[in-house]
């Protein structure tokens, strides 16, 4: 078995070093090595989006990225979305719109929606639905999630 590999990366604006096996996914590393369990595992093969993180500006399924690929990259996880001043507007609007029920998919949706709004501040409903189609939610029917994102984007009409 190969030895562990040393990886230097930046997670949520902090420099982070870790050792991982070549086979470990970024999801494994975040959850098991670094204790960042806000990133969730729903399928391990890129179909549910519960493990979405932002890797160098792109929303990715961290179950489809190897830990070693994080070297010299910048990663944002759900733990890095709020600031000491309070919740991110997406987090606040998810609460106000009741856009979560069981909450297991919520971190992935918030991270994916942030990646969208970082690129396109005012997406339409159709654009949001397309962007979030890689994140499965089984509780809400997406209605309130899409509305919460539209509210932050300023595209929600009463």
């Amino acid at each position, binding site marked *: 078995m190969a030895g562990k590999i040393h990886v230097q990366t930046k997670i949520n604006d902090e420099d982070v070093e870790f050792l991982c096996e070549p086979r470990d996914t970024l999801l494994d590393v975040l*959850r098991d090595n670094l204790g960042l369990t806000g990133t969730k595992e729903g*399928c391990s093969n890129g179909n549910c989006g519960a493990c979405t993180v932002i890797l160098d500006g792109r929303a990715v399924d961290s179950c489809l990225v190897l830990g070693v690929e994080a070297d010299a990259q910048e990663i944002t996880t759900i733990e890095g*979305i709020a600031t000491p001043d309070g*919740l991110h507007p997406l987090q606040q609007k998810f609460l106000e719109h009741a856009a*979560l029920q069981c909450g297991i998919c919520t971190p992935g949706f918030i991270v994916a929606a942030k990646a969208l709004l970082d690129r396109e501040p005012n997406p339409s409903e159709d654009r949001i639905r397309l962007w979030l189609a890689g994140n499965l939610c089984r509780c809400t*029917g997406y209605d*309130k999630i899409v509305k919460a994102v539209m509210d932050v984007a300023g595209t929600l009409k009463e």
Partner: protein
Amino acid sequence: MATKTEDYLGITDYKVIGTRPIRHDGVDKVTGRAVYGADVQMAGLLHGRILRSPHAHARIKSIDTSKAEALAGVKAVATAADIPMPEDKVEDLGEGAANLRHLRANVLADDKVLYHGHAIAGVAATNPNIAEAALALIKVEYEVLKPMLDVREAMAEDAPLLLENLTTQSGGEDTGKKSNIATHFQHKLGDLEAGFAAADVIVEREFNTGTVHQGYIEPQNATALWNPDGRLTVWCSTQGSFTVRDQMAQLLQLSVLNVRVIPTEIGGGFGGKIRVYLEPVAAILSKKTGHPVKMVMNRTEVLQATGPTPGSYIKIKIGATKQGKLVAAEAYLAYESGGYPGGWADPAAMCIVSPYDIENVTIDGYNVLVNKPQTMAYRAPGATNAAFASETVIDEICEQLKMDPLEFRLKNSAKEGTRRADGPVYPRIGHEECLKAAQSHPHYSAPLEGPNTGRGVASGFWFNVGLKSSATASVNTDGTVTLVEGSTDIGGTRTSLAMQLAEVLGISAEDVKPTVADTDGVGETDVTGGSRVTFATGWAVYKAAEDIKSQMIDRAAKHWEIPEKEVVFEDGNFRTKSDSSKSLTFKEMAGNLNATGGPVIGRGTVDPPGVGGAFAIMIVDVEVDPDTGKVQILRATMIQDAGKAVHPSYVEGQMQGGAAQGIGWGLNEEYFYTKDGHLANSSLLDYRMPTSLDLPMIDTVIVEVPNPGHPFGVRGVGEVPIVPPPAALANAIYRAVGVRMDVLPMSPGNILKAMWAKDGPGASKD
């Protein structure tokens, strides 16, 4: 509007109920801090994996675990031999009755495997990769048998038997006949023959529906620690900590006192997280190793081996007079129970024609073993398949009679006093109000243009359940209240419960801090299921609040040094009857508790009888692509009687979520088994659930016909919205492209098949 009944208080000026506060556990869930089962970490933790059967039906001839045990890093291996053999008896474990031997054999297979993915052995190792590697070293010899995958084949006289000693129970009596039919029952109302003789229109159809999964995003997980003092602690994602406790105690032959179940946050359940799978294996591995053992399923295991909900064969015949009165209905329901006996045809029969007042009804139900995982509840279990059959046949009758489908349903609607075919007489229900709300909704009269488009409607019924709940509440001296209850919170119920407490005590929802306790921290509480939490645990919380209120009245009397009967609590204030200058708010009075005798704790326990049944209606517009058979949903509206919507946002959320699941069931989702019984689509790529791109916004109308059996008129709201969508979609598809669908899912392939059967292949191209 509604009058006060024995239980319903008839309050019209709610202060808290009906508002939309932010849920108490919300911040934890939007920041990733909430702890779900897979997030549990502790010192010395070992990781467990399960060896699963590659065969759908086989006899296990031998299991050799020696090579796995010898692998470096492997700490223990468990097989069925490690679980004590219980008595051959049926126990009610808070989720419906189960034979303990079947429960045991489903956790780890004994002499036979009965479905692809059936658990055979568990391995605990220092990391999950070693545990996984060890599974490949376990040698199992099988004698492969022919699988039974279709209910009607499995019911045949000469069908190979899954459980060789199983005999059919009919009407509660043992027939002594060996068969894959576990149970048969019949409900009869009136005179079926006379009913059909009076009918001018009779429609009879057969339906087949696929096996579908609940599809919660969080896989099953369990962490167990069996201490040397004999005490077992289990952390897991479950709909009911007490049923897990009881299942563990029965399977491992422990006193319930020695089993503590700590429910973590739960990432969805929908009926699929009631039965134990991993928990007993993790416990045995912990006992063998002296370490805590954590087990988490992957998605393939979830789809292969946890309860899907049954596919079914349904035959239904309904008759009506030319004046549009339903006069007779006959239904035959055969539901998959999977590898072990189960009973989802039973609730199906309670719902199939229950939105209507029909005098003559006969329903026969069969629960049939097939080589699939033991089927489990899924949101109004049984009722969605059943409504697909009954509500499309009723649509066909409306068409033949040239009557509006909502008008026809209104004319025949069940109401207070109507007797259901399975026996109960309805108390006040809201089906008529829902139908009227649907009729007057702008969606129903909006123009629908373009080729290949159609609008459909359907009704759905679910009876809901009561069951046991417990709550305690402690008054803090600043007037806030700490609420402890036992219902795991899957959809915001901490808040819907806190709101009911706040309503009684005249404080705000934010002044209540709700906590879901473990099995050592609260009285017995049944599962978060049956749409029961806001209703039944709400009842317990209401009682706890009333208990606080009466104790605080005593304290106010002490404070004012007057007799208790002189004190009243109204509009959130303690007052005296004689002196209008004496008045204390709840918060002010809380500040006087320590000076008047010390802390006040309220308690409430219930097993409430006054369950209010729920009705939902869907109006849906579709466009069908005649070249591909793909259905696009153009517009969807859900109308539902909530009794009283405690937190309307979360009621809407249930309606929208139920609709989305019903749409997935209706259009896409199904288990594909190969002919040798392998599940061919055990990933979320191939078991395709609706995405945000597949759905429009789902409009909601909450109707409020108070349930006479609850102080605030609450009915369960969680389950019924999944019931109407497949039927409403089928009715819309018929209007769009002229085919009556008799199969679920109505996938592109199945729709094309139906269109080609009607018009010939490629006919739509012309």
